């Protein structure tokens, strides 16, 4: 009674909101790259927002469900289909036993999230289900999902009357959020912003920067006009975070992403605001970005707006889910 990987994807890992409280040991938080879509998937199922999901990159895994359940896919639109019939993202979908979920292409975005109504029988590590590939711990045996991996479900949801074998049903509720794929990403200045020459400060905000091939869950290296410091400085290692923009010695930028190192020694030019990290997480190689300065108050209010939206949605969906399950 489980979901089973019948064909491995490029990089599919179990993630949650991240492993908090161990950075002082060099153990990074990890967690979903697009925290908003990750939480949205749980919200639409009426689940606790912080439960584990599978983060999928394209080409994504093919997954066999051996037991009826309810799933929800959010984030990137990889054209999901069940038994070769396309299904929408951002909707809960009741799925019968023996159904196969596939992803047929990239319509938009870079990372999709698959949440499942059931609890999973997997071991956490240091209070999180996120996969830490370096330590080989957390998630599914500390590694990306491979063919024949089987995630067992801990509880049944609803009865077999929900939907027949090999059948599925799209539930009617969704999110009103429109896909936001704008290229203007807001930042607040970093501790070493003032180390930049004035013209480089202007270039940072006026020029476009392109995401290079060297972009993954650890960070995105960008290419663009070279930025210069007023003088070269030798910095001791100090804290960095998800969204910290560092200036490398060659004058190019790197944005640290979910699997970033806990500390770094390059100047921290800027920090992407938390509310825009989901936008960034859905960018692909060769996409271009422009950095727009904002202030702390605005950044904090944008976090709160997303937080309130997700919490309210979760409550509403929990109610609708219980109502629907009681009727079946």
């Amino acid at each position, binding site marked *: 009674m489980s979901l089973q990987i019948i064909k491995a994807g490029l990089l599919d890992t179990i993630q949650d909101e991240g492993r*908090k*409280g*161990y*950075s*002082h*040991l*060099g*153990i*990074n*938080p990890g967690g979903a790259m697009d925290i908003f879509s990750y939480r949205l998937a749980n919200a639409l199922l009426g689940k606790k927002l912080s439960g584990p999901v599978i983060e999928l990159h394209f080409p994504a895994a093919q997954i066999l469900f051996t037991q009826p359940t309810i799933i929800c896919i959010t984030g990137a639109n990889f054209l999901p289909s069940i038994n070769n019939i396309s299904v929408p993202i951002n909707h809960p979908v009741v799925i019968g036993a023996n159904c196969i979920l596939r992803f047929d292409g990239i319509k938009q975005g870079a990372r999709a999230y698959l949440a499942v109504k059931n609890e999973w029988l997997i071991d956490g*590590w*240091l209070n999180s289900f996120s996969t*830490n590939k*370096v*330590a*080989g*711990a957390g998630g599914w045996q*500390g590694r990306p999902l491979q063919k024949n991996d089987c995630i067992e479900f801990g509880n049944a949801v609803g009865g077999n009357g929900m939907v027949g074998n090999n059948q599925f049903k799209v539930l009617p509720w969704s999110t009103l959020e429109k896909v936001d794929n704008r290229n203007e990403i807001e930042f*607040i200045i*970093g*501790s070493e912003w003032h180390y930049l020459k004035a013209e480089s400060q202007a270039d940072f905000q006026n020029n476009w920067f392109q995401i290079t091939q060297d972009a993954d869950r650890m960070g995105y290296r960008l290419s663009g006009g070279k930025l210069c410091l007023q003088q070269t*400085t*030798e*910095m*001791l*290692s*100090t*804290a*960095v*975070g998800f*969204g*910290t923009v560092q200036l490398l010695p060659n004058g190019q930028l790197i944005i640290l992403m979910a699997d970033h*190192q*806990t*500390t*770094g020694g390059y100047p*921290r030019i800027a*920090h*992407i*605001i*938390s509310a825009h990290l989901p936008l960034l997480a859905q960018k692909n190689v060769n996409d271009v970005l422009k950095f727009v300065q904002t202030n*702390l*108050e605005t*950044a*904090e209010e944008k*976090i*709160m707006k997303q*937080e309130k939206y997700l919490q309210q949605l979760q409550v509403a969906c929990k109610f609708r889910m219980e109502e629907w399950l009681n009727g079946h």
Partner: protein
Amino acid sequence: MNGTASYNIFPLGDSALLIDYGNEMNVGINKKILLQFRVLQAARLPFITDIVPAYSSLAVHYNVALLHDKKQGDRTVFETAMALISPYLSSDDVEEENNRLIKLPVCYQPPFCLDMATIASAKNFDAEGIIRLHTAQSYRVYMLGFLPGFAYMGKVDDQIVIPRRQQPRANVPAGSVGIAGNQTGIYPFASPGGWQIIGRTPVPLFNKHLSNPTLLQPGDTVQFFSITANEFADYQSRPA
């Protein structure tokens, strides 16, 4: 002991603050930071999600949504966090610096001492001289970072201070002991890296099955001692 060191607090993005003592490798400052780290950790403030001590800074990551309700007037969440955290930074607690001394065997012989020849020629020493200087003193673990369990230690003897490699290695083997500037460190995992490698320890630095999975902790003292290649093999064949 530099008990009067002053700090600045500024935002590290919109969900963390940085208590910054400048850019200095100083035992007194680092002790102060680790004391603040322990006091804050023990306080278990629910809005704090992570506390990261470094050489001369302490980062406190916080949950904006949990703090937002505590906001007063025009204060930002950052200012609210700062106000709630500040009382813990001036703690007069008696300092309980841990006194752990960890002795680590290192084989400084080929094939483990990848950059020994480079350092020897740059510093006009033979390998024996470098080994003698590296093992002659103990080192403070100032902080962990970069990789799970990677300890930044210092300061190495001025005579063997050497910058990172111009061209970082794509794959430094696990257990490698290196020098970068006046720091010394050990790679707990195979990883890309630029430190100048002088040897390797057979002792595992990370065990995911332990509740405290890293062998070294901030504030520890480490003393290296030299072992032969045969002794290295003996260590490795011992059961964990």
